[in-house]
């Protein structure tokens, strides 16, 4: 039955994470962007919120909660409202843990989920994206081939968050098994120090500067137990959709930040004797920003609910992500425009949000929430 009201638990998550984002993340965002680093203390505090380990069983170090993509979307919207780079850092362990939780074998869960839990922020990550203009997660050029002793993995990855310190990686590759598209996308567990895993330099990107991300070169031989969920399971579509919902929600968070900042500025800034917000040219921009943010959020929620009901939501999630990505970019651009010259100056956060928002069209991940 149609309902637009979050559960009490979801409202509480929104409130708690939202308060953390406003009070702790946002004040640290500019300095993190400039220095390209995030205070370890902040990450540790964020980890205590429990977002990355909530749905992991207690015996494996989690809180044994029920996993909900919608609840996750609500949480990461708030985090990204604080700062996108910090949000992505905070959620990186989930990139490793949630796919194993969802589709891994019991053995894999027992062995690897403890690496992604505990009281200290755990450095584990995932490698999906590839350094090609035509990168597409449904057609990876990283190849996995079956051999007698397990698998070989060849290829190159980019935008691997926290790879510099990660103890373990989930590496996505196209398994050469005759299947195509989502069905042949498999995750492999690779531990740090594996022979043939080479870490590149830390990347320098236009935005998300505080997030330490790296390129990886892969020329690996892995054991048969490294393939997540075994050879016959098919999960690429669902995992990808989960991340697309999370990225949509994060796009909404960034857009909301930019909207609110430029709205407040427009009410303060006077021109020709009145606040610029009283001019229709500005007011209409803000009105459109507000309604498109609402629309993006509803599209993301619809995809989230479809996933929570067990579907793979390929259409809903990809459409939501494309929509929310372009809305975030447009809203952030409008925010810079409303601040005019001041928007271009790094004293205000809107230029940073514009750089970060551009990232959504580029970013793809796997199961962040």
């Amino acid at each position, binding site marked *: 039955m149609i309902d637009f009201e979050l559960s009490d638990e979801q409202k509480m998550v929104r409130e708690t994470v939202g308060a953390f984002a406003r009070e702790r993340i946002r004040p640290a965002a500019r300095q993190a962007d400039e220095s390209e680093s995030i205070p370890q203390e902040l990450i540790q505090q964020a980890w205590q919120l429990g977002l990355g380990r909530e749905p992991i069983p207690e015996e494996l170090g989690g809180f044994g909660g029920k996993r909900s993509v919608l609840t996750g979307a609500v949480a990461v919207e708030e985090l990204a409202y604080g700062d996108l780079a910090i949000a992505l850092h905070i959620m990186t362990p989930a990139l490793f843990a949630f796919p194993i939780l969802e589709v891994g074998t019991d053995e894999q869960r027992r062995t690897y989920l403890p690496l992604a839990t505990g009281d200290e922020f755990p450095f584990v990550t995932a490698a999906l994206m590839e350094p090609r203009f035509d990168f597409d997660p449904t057609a990876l050029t990283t190849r996995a081939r079956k051999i007698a002793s397990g698998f070989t993995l060849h290829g190159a990855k980019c935008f691997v968050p926290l790879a510099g310190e990660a103890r373990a990686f989930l590496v996505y590759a196209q398994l050469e098994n005759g299947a195509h598209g989502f069905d042949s996308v498999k995750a492999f567990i690779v531990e740090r120090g594996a022979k043939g895993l080479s870490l590149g330099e830390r990347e320098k990107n236009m935005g998300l500067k505080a997030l330490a991300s790296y390129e990886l070169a892969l020329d690996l031989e892995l054991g048969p137990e490294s393939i997540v969920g075994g050879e016959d399971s098919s999960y690429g579509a669902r995992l990808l959709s989960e991340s697309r919902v999370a990225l949509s929600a994060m796009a909404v968070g960034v857009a909301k930040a930019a909207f609110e900042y430029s709205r407040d500025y427009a009410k303060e800034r006077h021109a020709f004797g009145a606040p610029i917000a009283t001019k*229709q040219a500005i007011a209409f921009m*803000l009105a459109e920003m507000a309604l498109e943010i609402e629309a993006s959020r*509803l599209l993301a929620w619809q995809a989230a609910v479809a996933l929570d009901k067990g579907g793979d939501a390929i259409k809903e999630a990809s459409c939501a992500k494309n929509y929310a990505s372009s809305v975030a970019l447009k809203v952030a651009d409008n925010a810079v425009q409303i601040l005019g010259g001041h928007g271009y100056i790094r004293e205000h956060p809107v230029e940073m949000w514009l750089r970060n928002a551009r990232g959504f069209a580029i970013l793809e991940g796997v199961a962040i929430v």
Partner: protein
Amino acid sequence: MVDFELEPQIIERAKFYHTIAETMMRPISRYYDEHEHEEPQEFLQAMWRGALAERASGQQGEGGQRSQTARTLATAVFVEELCWGDAGLFLSIPGPGLGGAAIAAAGTPEQKERFLARFKSGEPKWGAMAITEPGCGSDSAAITTTARREGDYWVLNGTKIFCTSGQRALEKSDGFVVVWATVDKNAGRAGIKPFVVEHGTPGVSVIRVENKLGIRASDTAAILLDNCRVPLDHLLGSPEVKPERGFKDVMATFDATRPIVAAMAIGVGRAALDFVRDFLKEQKIEIRYGIRPSRMTALERDFIEMETELQAARLLTWRACWMLDRGMRNSLEASMAKAKAGLAVTRVTQKAVELMGPLGYSRKYLLEKWMRDAKINDIYEGTQQINLLIIARRILGYSSKELR
């Protein structure tokens, strides 16, 4: 708990309306587009009889069997189906219409009973609403039509235009028009009151029925009120002039009607989208969902964008309806839905014509008609710009004086 699935009973009922759209509206769609002022008698009679039968069996209104907790939402879903059939024919369906909505929003219980009872029996009847004047549209507060009290009557004088189903209400049935007029020009908005003007009242006449770009099956009347006398109890609600109150009634009407107009828009947009989808299917062109936009064909990009725009509008619309059903204030959300839907379907239908090339432009198909029909949604019930203005005032916390 957040959920996007319609109740089974709404889905079932929507299928019924879809069948009406497909079998009773689509086949006559082109004819009544080209024969603008002819009456689709058979269709109007059938819809009226259907509505009567539903009421007789204890179900309600043109929406038929609906969930008691989701009345507006159900209406939006059904209206989308009917406008998928033909928006102009939908607007011509007999019933209380916008006039009924005004009575529901502003009238006393006794007035509701008195004026709306007629829709339970007899021949087809229409209710209509007249706000717009030659000199004022969205600026409803600038209404110049006057209501002067003389003994036991209100005397109305002025000209109203763009009154949907005005001719059917006044000349073709035992209907009525709700006319908004000022009882005190000095009071501004507070002085604007709604009056029920019955068919056949001396002094009211239809002076013109407009020729339009689209929704041609719908009659759009210009009405002259020349010393038109209506009984005192035809003023809806209280005659007292309270600051802002009069206008609040207009606004309350819009809060309820804008989401429905948005749903109408979405129906037209979906018709165009389905046309393109079916055509592509025939040509064995498959839309690939889930691949990255940079790898899509231009056609895929356009199509998916159209589809998502429409879905975004639909979700905003459903939320505005859901809020109303829960008794929540929804002015902001109703305006968001209307602004988004009007613009989205204007763009979607125009893009659809482009994508279909000569087939889209040809009157052999209905697509070009839907493009013409769609445009009205960006105009009536508050233009795109007026809705943006309302949204802007709300999000900025400005009054209508501060943000004009």
